[in-house]
C-alpha cells in the first residue's frame, strides 16, 4: 500500500479547508509581533473601551488591546498544544515500539498502564495537578504530554505487531540487519502516517484542555491565552462587552479545534483504504 497522503488531503475539500486554517493560525502565531497593533501587556487605552478604529476589539478591564491579546494568545495555544503533541507522540512512539518489539512482561505492564490511564478522567487530573503546581506553560506542556500518550501508544503498538511480521522486515533481517536499522529504515517510516494523525489529535485535545484550564483560571495570570481572556471576560459580561471580548477568543478556540479536526479526519480517511475508496468513488 503506497499512498501519497498530501494528494489525498488535497482531494478532500474539508481537508483542504483544514490545511488553510491551520496554516493561517501558524502564520498568526509566528508573526504575532508584526501583526499585533499593540503590545498586549501595555496599557494603551482607557479600560473597557468598546471597539473603535484604533482598537477594533476594544480594550479589557486594564486597558490592554484585545485584538493584540487575541493574536498573542494564538502563540500560547499553539506552543502549548504543539509541544505537548510532540512530546506525547514521541512517548507513544517509543513506548508503543518497545511493547510491540520486546513483548513479554514489559508489554503487559505497558498495556495495563494504558488501560488505567484511559479510565482516568484526564481533564480532572489535569485540573488538580495544575492547580497544585504552579500552572505555567512548561507545567502544562509536561502535564499534557504525560496525560495524552496512551491512546496513540495503543494504536502504534497494534500497528507494530502487524508490521513486524511483514515480508520486508523478514527480508531485512535475513540480510543481517540489526534492530536499530530495522527500526529506522523499516518500522518508523511505516508509522509516519499514524504519527501524523496522532499528532493532530493530541494538538486538538491539548488546545481544548489548555483553554479549559485557563478558563477556570488555572494558568499563569500574566500570560496571554484565549482561555484566560474568556476567564476575565466572563466577569464583565454585565457590561455588554462580551460581543467583542468574550466571543472572539471563544470563536478562536472553536476554529482552531475545528481546523485540526478537519485535517485529522482527512488524514485518517486517506489512511484507511476503505474510507479512501469512497472518496475515489465520489470523484
Amino acid at each position, binding site marked *: 500500500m503506497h499512498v501519497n497522503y498530501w494528494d489525498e488531503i488535497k482531494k478532500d475539500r474539508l481537508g483542504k479547508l483544514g490545511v488553510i486554517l491551520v496554516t493561517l493560525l501558524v502564520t498568526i502565531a509566528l508573526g504575532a509581533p508584526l501583526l499585533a497593533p499593540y503590545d498586549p501587556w501595555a496599557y494603551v487605552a482607557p479600560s473597557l473601551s468598546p471597539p473603535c478604529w484604533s482598537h477594533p476589539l476594544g480594550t479589557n478591564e486594564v486597558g490592554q488591546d484585545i485584538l493584540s491579546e487575541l493574536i498573542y494568545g494564538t502563540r500560547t495555544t499553539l506552543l502549548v498544544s504543539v509541544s505537548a503533541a510532540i512530546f506525547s507522540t514521541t512517548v507513544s512512539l517509543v513506548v508503543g515500539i518497545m511493547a510491540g518489539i520486546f513483548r513479554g512482561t514489559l508489554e503487559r505492564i505497558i498495556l495495563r498502564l494504558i488501560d488505567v490511564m484511559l479510565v482516568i478522567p484526564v481533564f480532572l487530573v489535569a485540573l488538580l495537578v495544575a492547580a497544585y503546581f504552579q500552572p505555567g506553560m512548561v507545567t502544562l506542556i509536561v502535564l499534557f504530554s504525560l496525560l495524552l500518550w496512551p491512546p496513540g501508544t495503543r494504536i502504534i503498538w497494534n500497528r507494530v505487531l502487524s508490521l513486524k511480521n511483514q*515480508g520486508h522486515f*523478514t527480508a531485512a533481517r535475513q540480510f543481517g540487519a540489526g534492530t536499530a536499522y530495522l527500526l529506522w529504515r523499516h518500522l518508523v517510516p511505516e508509522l509516519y502516517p499514524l504519527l501524523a494523525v496522532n499528532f493532530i489529535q493530541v494538538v486538538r485535545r491539548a488546545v481544548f484542555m489548555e483553554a479549559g484550564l485557563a478558563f477556570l483560571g488555572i494558568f499563569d495570570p500574566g500570560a496571554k491565552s484565549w482561555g484566560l481572556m474568556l476567564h476575565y471576560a466572563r466577569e464583565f459580561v454585565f457590561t455588554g462587552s462580551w460581543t467583542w471580548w468574550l466571543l472572539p477568543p471563544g470563536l478562536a478556540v472553536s476554529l482552531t479545534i475545528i481546523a485540526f479536526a478537519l485535517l485529522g479526519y482527512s488524514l485518517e480517511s486517506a489512511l484507511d483504504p476503505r474510507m479512501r475508496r469512497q472518496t475515489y468513488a465520489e470523484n
Partner: protein
Amino acid sequence: MLKISELTVSFPSTGSPLPVLDGVNLQIEAGEKLGLVGESGSGKTSLALTLMGLSPGEKQGSVTFQGEELLEKNNREWEQLRGGSISMVMQQSGEMLTPVLSLGKQVAEPYLKQYPGRKEEAYRRTVSLLKQVGLGESYVHRYPYTLSGGEVQRSMLAMALITEPAFLILDEPVSSLDALTREEILQLLKNLTRNCSVLVISHDLSTVARLAERTAVLYSGCLLEKAPTEELFQSPLHPYSRALVRAYPTLEGVKELQGIRGEVPSLSFRPRGCPFHPRCTQTLDRCRRERPILEEAVKNENGGQRMLACHRGGVVELLRGRDIRSCYPLDGGGNGRAGYLEAVRGVDVYLDEGEVYALVGESGSGKTTLGKSLAGVDIPNEGEVYFQEKAINKMSRKEARETRRCLQMLFQNSGEALSHRFNVHDLVAEPLVIQGIGDDLSRRKAIERSLDWVRLPRDEDFMHRYPHQLSGGELQRVALARALVMEPRVLVADEPSASLDASVQAKIIKLLLHLQNERGFALFLITHDLALAARAGDRMGVMYGGMIVEEGPSSRLVHRPLHPYTRRLLQAAPTLELPPEEPSHASISGTENSTLQSTADQLQANSSGCSYAKVCHWSSAICFREKPPLREIGSQKVACHHLSAELQTIKHR
C-alpha cells in the same frame, strides 16, 4: 594390458608447444570396455590417434601395450601393430573407404598386410565377418558408394575386427547414425567385441553407457573423473561430469536441459591450475594455482573404484538440515498453555553446490517453514542447519555475516517483501547497505549488474521507481535482483512465481534457472506446483504434514512415484488435456475417494505416526503409531510403512 602414464601430447606452434593431452593416466585391462567422454576439443581423438601411433604431436610419458613401450616404436613396428593387435574404427567412417576398390578388398586389406599371400583365408574371414555384422556375401563385390551410412559403419567394424585385435578403439562409432541403426550397431558392437579390450570414445553419453563398463571423463586434455559407467551417470562426483549429464537429453529426464556455462578453453589459453576452474562454480584459490591429481575418491561407499581429480572432492555439499523440527504455538500468545503445532517434523535435507532442489507440497505442509529454517531466517526448535558443514547458529559473528551473504532467500509474495517506501535503487542496495559492503559507487555498479542479470532496465528513471509503480513480474525481478546482488551461493526461493500469471511465471522461472546455471548458485525451490518442480529440479522432495515423504531425482519421482501421496499429487498435477475416461483401476481409484484434511488437521492429526496416515488408503495401525523412516530404494527415498514387496525389489535391479 594397456597402460598410459603421464602421457602428454603437444603440437608445435609459433609460441610454446600446445598440449592437447596433459598428463593422462589410464589403464585398460584385458577384456575391459572403457568409455571416454568429453566435449569436442577435449582431446579424445588425439588420445586415440596416439594409441594408434598416428598422432603427429610431440609425445611425452609412456604408453605400454602388452608390456611393450609404444611411444618408442618406429614406423615399421607400428605397421605390424596397427591393424594387427590394435585396431580402430575411425570417426566419419564414410571417408575412410576408397570408392575405387570393392568392399571385400578393403575389408581384407589389414589382414593381407599382416599375413601377405594368405588370400584364401582373407576371403573366408571377410565373408564370415560381413555376415556377422549383418551384411551378406554379396557385399564383398559392392563398392562403398552403393552403401548406406549404417552399412559403411558395419563394414568398417568388420575391417577393424578382421585381424582379431586384442585392443579396439571406437571413435564416435555411432554418432552420425539415426536412432534405429545406432541401436543395431550398438548391439552388434556389444556382441562382437566380447573378447577384446575396447576404448569407446564419444561425446554421446548413451553410446558410452551402452558399451563401456567404466568411463573416464576427459576435459581439456585432463582426466577429471573415472568411475563405473552407471555410477558416473547416476551420481557424478565432478562438477563437470554432472554438467555433462545434465546437458544430455533423455526421454526419462523431465528437467529442462542446461548447457555448461562458459566455453571450452582454447589450446593456447589453457587455464593454470584445474582446467575446469573458469567454468566451475565452486572454485577456490587453490583450483587456480594447482592442478588436481586423479585420486581415489572417498565419497562413494558402495562398491566400484571411483577416481576423481578435484580439489574440492567433487561436488560440495553446501547446505544441510539435520533433523529439523519447527513448532508454532497454537494460540495464547507464547505462554505455552495451548500446545504447539508441529510445522516441520524432523526433516533431513541437503543441497549440493550448483544443484536445484525442488520441494513440493500443498500449502500448510511446512515448506515455507523449512525454507526459512534453511535460509537462516528462523531458527528451528530442534535440529541444526549446516552451511558448508558449519552449524549456522553456532557460528562466530564474522562467519555468520559471511554466511548471511552466501545464503539468500527469495520470499513468497514479493510485493510484501519489498518495502513500499524504498525505490528500486534502495531496494536492491539494501543488503549491501546492511552488510556495509562497498561505497556508493561500487554499490551502484553491483546494483546495475544485478539488474542486468534479471533483465530489468538500469536507467535513472527505473532506479527511482517505487514498488507500486511496478508490475508483479517486475517486482519479482527486483526481489530477485536484491537476492542476487550479494552473489549468494545458495538461494532459497519460496514460491517465486505463485502469484504471477502463466506467461510471466514461465519467464521468471526460466530466468531463475538460467541464472542458476550461469551464476552457479544452488537453488532450493519451494513450490506447490509439481509440474514446475519436475521441470526445474535436479532432485525433488515431496512434503506432507511436516515430513518429507519422498525424495529423489525428479525424473524418478515423476515416472515412478512410490509414496501414495506423491501418486496423488501426480494425478492432480495440472494438465491441459481432458481427463481420460476413468478406467476402473483398483489401485488408482482407491486413493481417489479419500478427501484431504485441512492444514491444521494435517499437522495436528498424528503427532507420533505418519502424517499421511489419516488420508492414506493403505494405512494400518503401525502408521498411526510410528513415524516411518526415510528408506532408500534405488536412487529414491521414501517414508512409508507399506512399501509393497514389488517396490522393494526395485532396489536389486
